[in-house]
């Protein structure tokens, strides 16, 4: 009895902690058994999808991307096509689709009958390209002012769109240039910009702007639509 009395505290010093620890471990085992591994309710990295991505805008982006060979493995190579057929929208409705992109768009301005990017234009292309974020496609919509022959303006707007692409390819060793840049040239006959676009972010911001000058341009922006 005397030995038991003196040994009891020492016995308890093992039994009590062991009892407590075994209970806690049992709870942990139980909790582990019911929990599933992996992240719980965690978002997965994905391309951006902004509110302005209406079905109509997506359709246009998809058509342009298709025409440029971006949706399959063929690689880039925009085919000459009637812009109106690609867009299949009323010209004013086409321009209205881009209104929500005002903060995203850069308007690259050119001299008359020129497709050469001046330093301000190159900086604007850099700024637009670096603002890629999670966007799926980089859209280049080139136009020409109504001066001159219609066919020439078609070629000129094509050259302006191509000038932006060439600059990107030369400047950035980025596979996205070939996979993501969609070109659309509208010439003079479709969806001319109104003077309202002079207030947008354009490469010749300090210079005079009217409907003629604003249409000697390429309208560029990353489009945050998951196509």
């Amino acid at each position, binding site marked *: 009895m005397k030995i038991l009395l003196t040994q009891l*505290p020492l016995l308890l010093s093992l039994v009590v902690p062991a009892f407590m620890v075994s209970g806690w471990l049992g709870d942990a085992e139980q909790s582990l058994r019911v929990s599933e591994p*992996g992240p719980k309710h965690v978002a997965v990295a994905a391309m951006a999808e902004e509110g302005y991505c209406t079905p109509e805008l997506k359709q246009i982006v998809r058509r342009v991307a298709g025409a440029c060979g971006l949706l399959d493995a063929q690689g880039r190579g925009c085919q000459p096509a009637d812009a109106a057929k690609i867009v299949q929208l009323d010209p004013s409705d086409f321009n209205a689709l881009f209104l929500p992109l005002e903060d995203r768009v850069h308007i690259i301005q050119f001299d008359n009958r020129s497709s050469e990017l001046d330093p301000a234009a190159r900086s604007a292309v850099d700024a637009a390209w670096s603002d890629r974020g999670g966007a799926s496609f980089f859209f280049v919509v080139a136009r020409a002012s109504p001066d001159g022959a219609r066919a020439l303006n078609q070629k000129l707007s094509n050259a302006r769109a191509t000038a932006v692409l060439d600059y990107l390819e030369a400047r950035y060793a980025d596979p996205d240039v070939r996979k993501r840049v969609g070109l659309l040239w509208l010439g003079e006959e479709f969806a001319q910009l109104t003077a309202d676009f002079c207030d947008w972010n354009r490469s010749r911001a300090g210079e005079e702007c009217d409907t003629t000058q604003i249409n000697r341009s390429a309208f560029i922006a990353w489009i945050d639509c998951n196509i």
Partner: protein
Amino acid sequence: MFEQDAPPSDPTPDELAPPARQRGGPWLAAVATAALVGAFFAALSTHDFILHLDGQIHAIHCSVMPGDDVVVGQSGCKDAMLSPWSSFFRRSVWGGLPVSLAGFAVFAFVAGLALALLARRERTRHDTFFLFLASMVPATASVIWAAISATQLGAFCQVCVGMYASSAALLVLAVIAHVRAQPPAPTPRPWGRWALWFGEGVAVVAGLVVVYLALVPGERKSLDGCGRLVTTEDERGVLLRVPGEGVAPALTVIDPLCPSCRAFEERLEQSGLADELTRRVLVFPLDSSCNWMVKQSLHPGACAVSEAMLCAPERWTEVLDWAFAEQDRLLTLGAHDPKAVAEAVVTRFPELKGCVGTPRARDRVTSSLRFAVANALPVVTPQLYVDDVKVCDEDTDLGLEFTVDRMLNRRAEAGAMP
């Protein structure tokens, strides 16, 4: 016989003193109390540790003040608990064997021993000497772990401080109890009794360890990983190489202003596992100014630091080390004005002035984020992939060494190791 017949003489001071059982009794009770307080703190710490064995997020006891007793998320207490110093044998047991478990056993044994001595009819300094020796164990361990906290962790866990204080009090009280105990008769030292107590002490610690190892959860679904990388091709050269050559390829996904990432990188370094991996780092700032996947910035300013890292591929570790060291200040700066973080970066690294904030730097960060998109990575940091297999989030803290060690062993068994 002669002495029996001798006339009674005046009592000596020793004969006037209380019987041996009473002498030093209150001090022994005080020793037992200090040991029980230490056991309480050790139990609290062990409980917090065991709670985390399920790999889930739990509150942690970070203070013993009423109403301020638990903390969820990052804290010095959590850093201490998750650090490799909180447990032994982490590669063999998921989470390892908590140091506090041994502390719990030792404190409990010392309390039991003090109470056992209190219950003895006779006790002398021979007995209290062993109690003093036993009290030296938690005191010595406390000095070692306090030094580790100060020098390695840079943070003190308050529950641990409770254990350190209890150990100090225990030692002081054991010394007093020893001094106040009945001087022993001029007999040989009781080696047998000491050996018995020593054996009992070892048995208490070993018994608790055996119970722990027998019952610690073993089966874990998470050990098979939580998905794989879809592509590891770094077309845009945005993955940053960690110096060193390990046996297995690995990728870590971090945000330079994420406190969990800082703690994770420290754990990885301290674990020694970093040397076994050939690691690349994907920068993934949880800052909405560049990351479209984050609607509200968790770490404002992280984009600027990420740009700096990607601007200086040969010096990115310096930038990251600086960002981790200055993380609290940078987060405060970023909360008020994210541009101030960019200014702080170029002030510290003037050679990056021509890069941070430029379209090219932003583009590098975007490319890094798009690598995450290409792999459909979870929008969370930190992440670790070994051999393209994602280490489940629940295995990146306490179970890091065990899980990665197991992955490396599997790789070796599969013959991938040279």
